[in-house]
Every structure is written in structure tokens, then in C-alpha cells.
């Protein structure tokens, strides 16, 4: 247990260092990398923000991601950070480059809490299938970052068409415990370390229901049933508790991850469709003393929205996917609105290399489906479904997810209302660096894979 606590302290120190960096304006990348002992962070982030110019976005409708809306707003950012946001009268230092956003909209960078970019990259050939270590029902020892191919062309599409600046890459759902996630900045990089979000906590991907029992039951292995799923999970947690209590354990990668969960250092992102299963998982978490941060897919959250509110668990959901598998048969398009209306946390996720380009649109559909049953959720709150709420459920809300002074300048300028089908990102900044400009073909990431091939550098 002492070991787990030590790890916990190190991570807390890391988070503190980051917050300090954000408020003083120093670059966070190198500081965070050097703050962690190698044993705790053996594949450290080497991400450093790209150069940007001090920028003033003026005249646009600004959604701050935290539920705020400013008409004719002003957003100032410099040195990678949001300096200030306000109305038309906010003073603009003379050195700032002004960008006229009249008739346009500004939001924080979009965040996808559930992506497989890089670990299931395109082209989707078998040689690229690196998202499920489907050789054992519990593989908490694997880390998604060791599968991520930074040249996945999907990253650029998510940036250009979706305004995505941060994303969490999860292992797949073949296993009950699929492994550790990695949170990435959406920047072109030669290495995955160059994309790793400095200081972002790890999450453990878990999965309920059909997938694990199908994959292993199909091989006549445990688990082949939902009760088998729970039995394997519980025994694995019991073993992890013993490991965590051992003051001098033999090093074990799987149990290191699980001890991190039990210590509260590693969050849990739990793929789960059915309401009844989510309720059982909540009890399992209580039984072993860990916390589920978010249920993913969660198509039946609307049936237990009260329970989810009481447990302070987010639901990371699609707007309207349904029917593709038995446990998705009761999916309804009003799910997000009903969860929100019950006071529980909603995150719109993609789980899809195409859907990640339209998280704003999915949120807009979910909002409208709520409105039609009398649940009126203001636009500025809906924006938080794919910005600040996602950041919170990934443990990075101190650094990004909203436009607040001192936070990372992850900013999207949309050419229209982001909740309209007719709007697209016009400019996207990651940490204050302009990495996409619809009007400048040179500001458009092109993967190594695409060079010299049909369609290279095209509008996508």
C-alpha cells in the first residue's frame, strides 16, 4: 500500500506543478517530464507547444466551455495560454494580432474522451489492428500508448473537420480490463511521446457485457457469461488488493495499474451499455474501493440517470447510435438530454474515426431530441458536453476544456454556429499555435502515410 501511496503522491505533485506552470505561463511540457521519476513515468511526454503569436479573437459569439456565452466576445491568448476573455470592451494589447470573428463562433478545443485513433489507425488493415490485446480477459498491463501510430491520418481529420485538440486513446473492449489509456495533444508528431498530454492521469479501460464474454466464451474460456465477467473482475481486484498491500511485491505490470486505480491515481473508463450492468459495476467499485469515472457508450444511462447522479459518474455517449448489437437495442436519441436533465454528467464521445470529426453535431442532435420532449438545454451548456465535461472525466480540466485565464489556449474559430450542420472549424489553435487554417493549405497536417499518394494534402 505504501508503494501505491508513494505513486499517488508523485502524481499529485505532478498535477500541482502543472497547475503552477499554467498560472505562471511557462511551457508545461519539459517541466512535467522532468518532474516525474522514471519509474512512475517511464515513457514521458516530450510534447512542447509550437510557436504562436499573441492573438485577439474579436466580434465572435464565444462559448467558454464552462456554460458561459458572450456575444461580440473577445478572446486573448499568448504564449500558449488564455490571457483573458470578455466582451467587446476588453482591452487588447497593441502587440496582439486581431482576427475578426464577426458572425463566427469560438469554443474551446474539442475533446474526445473515447478514441482509437493510432491504435486502430487507417488504413484499417490487419497489420494496424493494435487496439485489443485479446489474448486474456484481463490485460491491465498493456498501455495504449505503446500501440499508437502517430502517422494515423485520422488525427488530422479530427483536427481539421472536428476541431479536436485533445483526445483520449483507449484500448478496445474485447477484455474486461483492456489496459491503460493515453491522453494526447492533437499535434503532428514523430513519436507518441511528442503527443502525450503532459501530466494527464492514466485511465484503465474496462468493459462490461457482450464483448468480453463473446470473445472468451467463443474460445470456451472464462468468461462466457455476464456472471463470469463479474467473477473474473472480482478475483482480479482481490489479487490487486493483495498486491497493493504488499510492501515489497515482485513488480507486476498488471497489478501496478490496478493498484493505481485502487489508490485513486488512475481513473476508470468503463465501456458498459446496459443500465442493470452499470448498477452492478457501481457496487463492484464500492466493494473494492475504486471509483468509476465514466461509463462509455452507456446507451441505457437514461434508465438510471438518478443513480448516476448520486454516484457522480459521467456517461460518455453517442447521440443516436442504436441497434447494432443486442445491448444497444434500447438506445434512444434522448439519452443525453435525459441524463443531463437528471443532473448527471454528459460527455459526447465518438469511438469512431469518422464520428470524432462531428462531436459538435452529435451534441446538437442530442440537444434537439431533448428539446422535443421539453428538456431545453442552452447551447452554452451543450458545448460543455464535448469540452469541459470531457476534460473533467479525463482529469485534465485544470489545464484545458474551457476558455479561462491561464488555461491552455486550445481554441476553435468556427465559421458559424458549432451546433449547426452548416458550420466547420475555420482555425484551430493547440496551446496557442495555429495548426489548422481553412484558408491556408500550408496549415494542414498531412501524415507521412499520405505523402506521394492520391489525395495528398487535399481538403478532406
Amino acid at each position, binding site marked *: 500500500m505504501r508503494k501505491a501511496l508513494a505513486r499517488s503522491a508523485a502524481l499529485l505533485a505532478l498535477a500541482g506543478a502543472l497547475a503552477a506552470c499554467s498560472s505562471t505561463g511557462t511551457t508545461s511540457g519539459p517541466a512535467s517530464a522532468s518532474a516525474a521519476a522514471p519509474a512512475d513515468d517511464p515513457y514521458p511526454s516530450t510534447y512542447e507547444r509550437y510557436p504562436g503569436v499573441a492573438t485577439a479573437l474579436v466580434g465572435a459569439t464565444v462559448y467558454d466551455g464552462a456554460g458561459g456565452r458572450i456575444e461580440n466576445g473577445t478572446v486573448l491568448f499568448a504564449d500558449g495560454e488564455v490571457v483573458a476573455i470578455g466582451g467587446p470592451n476588453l482591452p487588447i494589447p497593441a502587440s496582439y494580432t486581431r482576427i475578426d470573428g464577426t458572425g463566427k463562433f469560438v469554443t474551446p478545443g474539442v475533446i474526445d474522451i473515447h478514441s482509437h485513433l493510432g491504435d486502430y489507425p487507417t488504413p484499417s488493415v490487419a497489420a494496424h489492428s493494435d487496439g485489443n490485446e485479446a489474448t486474456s480477459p484481463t490485460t491491465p498491463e498493456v498501455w495504449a500508448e505503446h500501440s499508437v501510430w502517430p502517422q494515423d491520418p485520422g488525427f488530422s481529420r479530427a483536427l481539421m473537420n472536428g476541431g479536436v485538440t485533445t483526445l483520449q486513446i483507449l484500448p478496445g473492449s474485447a477484455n474486461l480490463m483492456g489496459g491503460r489509456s493515453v491522453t494526447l495533444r492533437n499535434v503532428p508528431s514523430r513519436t507518441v511521446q511528442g503527443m502525450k498530454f503532459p501530466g494527464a492521469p492514466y485511465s484503465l479501460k474496462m468493459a462490461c457485457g457482450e464483448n468480453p464474454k463473446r470473445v472468451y466464451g467463443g474460445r470456451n474460456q472464462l468468461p462466457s457469461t455476464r456472471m463470469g465477467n463479474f467473477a473474473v473482475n472480482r478475483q482480479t481486484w482481490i489479487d490487486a488488493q493483495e498486491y497493493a498491500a504488499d510492501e515489497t511485491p515482485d513488480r507486476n505490470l498488471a497489478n501496478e495499474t490496478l493498484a493505481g486505480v485502487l489508490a485513486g491515481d488512475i481513473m476508470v473508463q468503463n465501456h458498459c451499455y446496459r443500465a442493470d450492468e452499470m448498477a452492478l459495476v457501481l457496487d463492484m467499485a464500492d466493494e473494492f474501493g475504486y471509483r468509476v469515472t465514466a461509463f462509455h457508450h452507456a446507451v441505457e444511462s437514461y434508465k438510471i440517470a438518478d443513480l448516476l447522479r448520486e454516484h457522480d459518474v459521467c456517461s460518455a455517449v453517442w447521440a*443516436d447510435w442504436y441497434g447494432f448489437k*443486442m445491448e444497444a437495442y434500447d438506445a434512444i436519441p434522448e439519452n443525453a438530454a435525459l441524463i443531463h436533465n437528471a443532473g448527471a454528467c454528459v460527455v459526447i464521445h465518438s469511438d469512431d474515426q*469518422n464520428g470524432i470529426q462531428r462531436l459538435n453535431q452529435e451534441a446538437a442532435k442530442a440537444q434537439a431530441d431533448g428539446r422535443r420532449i421539453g428538456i431545453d438545454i442552452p447551447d452554452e451548456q451543450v458545448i460543455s458536453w464535448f469540452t469541459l465535461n470531457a476534460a473533467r472525466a479525463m482529469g485534465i480540466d485544470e489545464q484545458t476544456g474551457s476558455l479561462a485565464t491561464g488555461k491552455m489556449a486550445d481554441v476553435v474559430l468556427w465559421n458559424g454556429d458549432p451546433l449547426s450542420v*452548416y*458550420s466547420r472549424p475555420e482555425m484551430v489553435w493547440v496551446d496557442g499555435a495555429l495548426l489548422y487554417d481553412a484558408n491556408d493549405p500550408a496549415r494542414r497536417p498531412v501524415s507521412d502515410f499520405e505523402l506521394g499518394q492520391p489525395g495528398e494534402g487535399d481538403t478532406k
Partner: protein
Amino acid sequence: MNARLLLAAASLLALAVPVAAQDMVVTNATVALGDGSAPIERATVVVRAGRVVAAGAGVAVPAEMTPVDGSGMWVTPGLFASITNLGLSDVDAVDESSDVSADRSPFSAALDVSPVINPAAQDIAISRAGGVTRASVTPEAGSEIFAGQGALIDLGVGRTPVTNPRAFQLVELGERGAQLSGGSRTSAHAMLRNALVEASSFAADPERETDVMLTRFDAAALVPVVSGQQKLYVRVHRASDILAALELTEIFPALDLVLVGATEGWMVADAIAAAGVPVIAAALNDLPESFERLAATQSNIGRMVDAGVMVGIGGYESSGDHPRSLPQMAGNLVAVSRMPGAAGLSWGEALASITSVPAQIAGLAAGTGTLAAGAPGDVVLWDGDPLELSSAPVRVFIEGVEQPLDNHQTRLRDRYRSLDESEMPRGMVR
């Protein structure tokens, strides 16, 4: 208990009995005709005896008819969804509920979806509530390059769904065709050519004694393809595969081709246009999902249309793609048209790409999918711009018959609108 059962039976019957076509006039609505033209404000639509009588501004309301006030509403023709699995499965991943593909069948081209389409499938009810009134339904290839024969349906409740059985044959000629035919596109092309030759000889001599490569039943099914009486949908994505597909008509001149997929169609758009072959393409593919789709871009459809190709939106590849998403797909192409260097569709073209254009490609009578006089009375009233994310159908008519918009999802929604169980369990709330 008996009374309850009787009531349940009665409500099932009520669902199943078709309602008569009703005459209808909507006034003061924004009307989009579906023919590619821009929407018309403060317009009127008149439907009588299951057919559109008139639509547009300045249309007189027949004296004996009471108009529906369409203020704030939009009126469009019903949507046409191409290349769907509507009515072929209940749950995609539940094999026993799915008739989409038959990979252990001894037959291929002979497979025919028309007798097995289930009009009560939830997918149909949910699509109907999304404004989809007609669709093409296709089998997917299982063990051979030929998927089998698709049908055209309408989504009207209580009706026989199939309006045009055996409307087309679908063949796979790209990477999938290579896999299905033995491991190479060479084999896929040899298989297709051989099959069409066998079909020709079968047509000349139906009394042949033995099977050659094709079963008699499969050969017979390809006779209308080789003679051009049945459309041949060819699924290809790569630019060179598209050109190879177009060249089939040099050997089999009667083929009535439709390209399906055509992700790299924009690269050979002029050749497609010159061949006069229409295309059914997904709207938003922009990733190199495979080596046959390296040049994928959301500008694909816009560029093909600019080159003079007739293109309908269709193709449902991810779990989130459903026929009811057609307006979102079309709306996105309007968004694309506003991006520098990109090619999309005008609003009118976008609506046409999910109404009249796919209906025409499918072979339905001219006017279907529009609000032209004489067109089927497939009419949708929307609570806003139909391509916008915030909009949804309010009323849906198929040949003048108003359709129910409820389904499994709406019932769940109503049951769980409140979670209060202080008086009775949610499981008894209906």
C-alpha cells in the same frame, strides 16, 4: 387478463391496418421540391388521392379543402435511402435476426431479398420517423462476388413493403470482390465475366444439362443483368477499379451499370460522366480506410456532381450511420461547399441527393422524390430546415397516407421520461 390480451391484440391490429389516403393542403410553409431547386417560402402543397397535385408559391387552395397551417414548418418529399439493410435484420450483431448475408449458401446471384423483408422491423419504423419513405434494400455478398438481388420498398405501415422486387443485382469488384473470389481482383473480374457469359448462354439454352461455374438458378438470375433489364450495381472504390467497371460495357454492351461506393470517383469523374453511369456514394468518407480509398475526401460527391455525374447519397458503413442520418449527411455537403478548395452541394442539390436523385437512380418513375404534380404523395412536414441537426419530421405521409411515428425508441423515451417509482414500477408504465 383476457380483456387486457384482447386490448393488446386490438392495438396490434390497429397498427397493422392501413389508413386510407387523405387529401391534404399545407399552406404558409417553406417548401423544398426535391428537384434541386432552392426552397420556396410561404408556399402551398396540395395532395389528393395519394398524389401530389401542386406545390409552390401561388398555388390555390381547392375550395373544399381545409388547409393545414404550415407556418414555421418545412415541407419536402420523403427521403429515399439507398443501399440499406432495412427489414433484413433486427440487430446487426445477432446473427439469427439477420438476413443481410448468406455466406454458407450455395447460391449467390439468385439470392433475392424481396420475400424476406420484414416491414415490422424497428429499423423501418425508426427510419420512417426520420422522414424516410422509400429505400433500396440490398443483400451483402457472403461467399461470392454476387450479393444477390435487391428490392425497392416503401416504408408505409401495414403495407406490403416491396414495390419493385429484383430491382438490381449487386457485385463486388474491389478489395472485397478480390477476397470473395479467391484472393485477387483478377479472379473477381474473371468470375464476373464468366458469369455474364454463362448467363448469356443460359438465356440461349435454358435446357443445359449441367452446372458450369454457376448454378442454374444463379445463371438464370443473371440473364436480366446481361440483357440490361436489371440494373447491375458494382461496388468499387479505387479510381482504376471504377474505370475497369465502366469498361465492362465494351464486352457486355447492354449492362445498366450503377457505381456503388466510388470513394475515388472524383479522380475519374469525367469518365464516369461520359459513360452516363450514376453513382451512389457515402457523403463523408475522408479517410484512407483501405488502399482502395487513399484519395477519400468529403469533396468527392461535389466534384463528381460538378463534372456532370448523377450522384445519390447512400452507404452505411459505421454503426452510427442510419437512413435517418441522411439529412445530416446532405447538410454536411452544404457545409463543405463553403470551405475553401472544397466542393460540396448547394442546399437544393443536397436535398435532391437524398430524395429525387437516388429515386431516379433506383429506377423509380420520374418525379418520385419530388413534389412535382403527379408524384407519389410522399410528403414530410418538418419542424425546421430538414437538413439542420435541430430539425425532425412532424408528420410523414406515404402516398397520402399519414404514418405513425412511434416505435420502440419513442416508447422507451416515454416510459423513462420520469424515473419516479413511488407509485408503481417503471415496468408497468406505458
